[in-house]
């Protein structure tokens, strides 16, 4: 089975993230990049499927040059090779452009299964997996907390508000995973050493037959008009419990008409 797992580099949530004042895009240079946490679950699921069914796991990352750190981590976990989609023309791409460029790259790479995290911690749109399914004309098997493949058929449990839906489809398909589907492995020392020798192919906009007018900040379908640091919340009232803390909190809730 030919599995492509989409891994994004995101700013470490523990650091202060900023938008650039010039073009209102995320300032990726100012912060440390880490692997989007949910994507580690996607990598783990890909590795497990490979272990069970054979095949190859390819990491696909779209992002600036320093996203290679993220690629190395996924390779150290056990992925076989990587494709790094990187091009100045891609900077500032919104969800539509990103899904377009990634779909073009996926068509070039070829796949039986594409696995993504369900959401990135920076953009937090959670739309990319559905958009890719739409663009690739492949079944959308998203928000999975369980994935089973048998021959060319695939079944997932899709998390819902009321429990889960059992969903069936035929490969090739697009899967997104939620946290708790598995326990991502830590890269071993051997894995880290081996990752250094694994092939990483770099692709630009021209290599994926993408229309440069459809990507990057200039092409964006949505725009940030304005932004500002959130005003600090007005300082609240903090009381020490002297045996009446619950009653005092109830007074507060009553004053706000919650009770």
């Amino acid at each position, binding site marked *: 089975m030919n599995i492509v797992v989409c891994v994004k580099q995101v700013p470490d*949530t*523990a650091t202060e993230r900023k*938008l650039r004042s010039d073009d209102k895009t995320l300032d990726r240079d100012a912060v440390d990049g880490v692997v989007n946490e*949910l994507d580690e679950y996607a990598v783990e699921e890909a590795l497990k499927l490979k272990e069970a069914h054979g095949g190859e796991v390819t990491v696909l990352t779209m992002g600036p040059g320093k996203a290679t750190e993220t690629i190395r981590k996924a390779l150290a976990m056990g992925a076989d090779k990587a494709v790094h989609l990187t091009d100045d023309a891609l900077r500032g791409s*919104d*969800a*539509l452009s990103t*899904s377009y460029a990634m779909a073009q790259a996926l068509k070039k790479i070829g796949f039986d299964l594409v696995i993504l995290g369900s959401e990135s911690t920076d953009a*937090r*749109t959670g*739309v*990319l997996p*559905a*958009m890719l*399914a*739409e*663009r690739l*004309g492949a*079944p*959308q*098997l*998203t928000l999975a907390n369980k994935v089973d493949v048998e021959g060319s058929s695939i079944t997932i449990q*899709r998390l*819902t*508000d*009321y*429990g889960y*839906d*059992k*969903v069936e*489809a035929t490969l090739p*398909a697009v899967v997104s995973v939620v*946290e708790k589907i598995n326990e991502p492995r830590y890269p071993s020392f051997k894995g880290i050493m081996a990752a250094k020798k694994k092939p990483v192919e770099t692709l630009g906009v021209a290599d994926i037959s993408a229309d440069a007018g459809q990507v990057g900040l200039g092409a*964006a*379908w*949505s725009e*940030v*008009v*304005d*932004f*500002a640091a*959130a005003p600090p*919340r*007005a300082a*609240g009232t*903090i*009381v*020490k*419990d002297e045996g*009446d*803390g*619950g*009653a005092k*909190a*109830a007074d*507060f*809730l009553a004053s*706000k008409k*919650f*009770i």
Partner: protein
Amino acid sequence: MSEILVLVEHVDGEVKKVTLELLTLAKSLGSPSAVWAGPGLSDAATAKLTEYGADKVYNASAREIVDYVVAPKAELLAQLVSSAAPAAVLVAATAEGKEIAGRLAVKTDSGVITDAVGLGDGFVADQSIFGGGVNVKSKVAKGTPIVAVRPNSTAPVAAAGAGAVEEVAVALSDAARAAKVVDRVKQEKGARPELTEAAIVVSGGRGVGSAENFSVIEGLADALGAAVGASRAATDAGWYPHQFQVGQTGKTVSPQLYVAAGISGAIQHRAGMQTAKTIVAINKDPEAPIFELADYGVVGDLHQVVPQLTEEVNKRK
């Protein structure tokens, strides 16, 4: 007035509160048309949608629409976008709502804005990003604005619309029939409201101490008619099921009232609750960062404070 499509969220034939909020928002910007996807539109549901402003109710009652994952709903909306040429399409910013919005955006070559917490003239949306640290105003630059709005962003206001029902037939493509729902498993849910939709959420963290002790959190939640949430420390410990995790890698909630008990207030937890209108924190550590957000904080042991609060709430009801 310009037509605005609102995708109706419904369970067991009942319209969810978030849809009434979206209708109210749409009414402030144009003429709302509710879109009912799947079987089950009753007179009562039509009356409810009308009461909250729907001038039109599109009824796409084909069973097929709910038999496959997401894609049929996006096709239905795309069909209506091309026939009705609405000024905008609003969906609820639930996990599925956002997926529908994403596919619709690709289909109609339109921009999409997710997790709006407000929407004003020219469909300029308010968003809160980076764990609540930055407020953004954004808008769609191309095509029909598609906006996924977070539950609890507006209070629903009754304002009767014309409520004309129009039947809609959809011809699904093969691609929309690719992922078939073969079974729906309902897990015990009890009487509590849906976490992402609830007007009040009571969450417990590591300070709760054990799975059994979550009954303290549930007790307060039930007294307030609230949903129960948990921090990742609590779900990782297996004290509470993962689907109730609030935060960056869990659910995002934006309730009127959020009560955090035994939660320190890490940035990743804040990312899921910072847009709550009122925040109450109970923590024994006066230095806990959650107090920086709290409108009201009690420094104390939650095992004392929460049961007393629950008792008081029950007494004063």
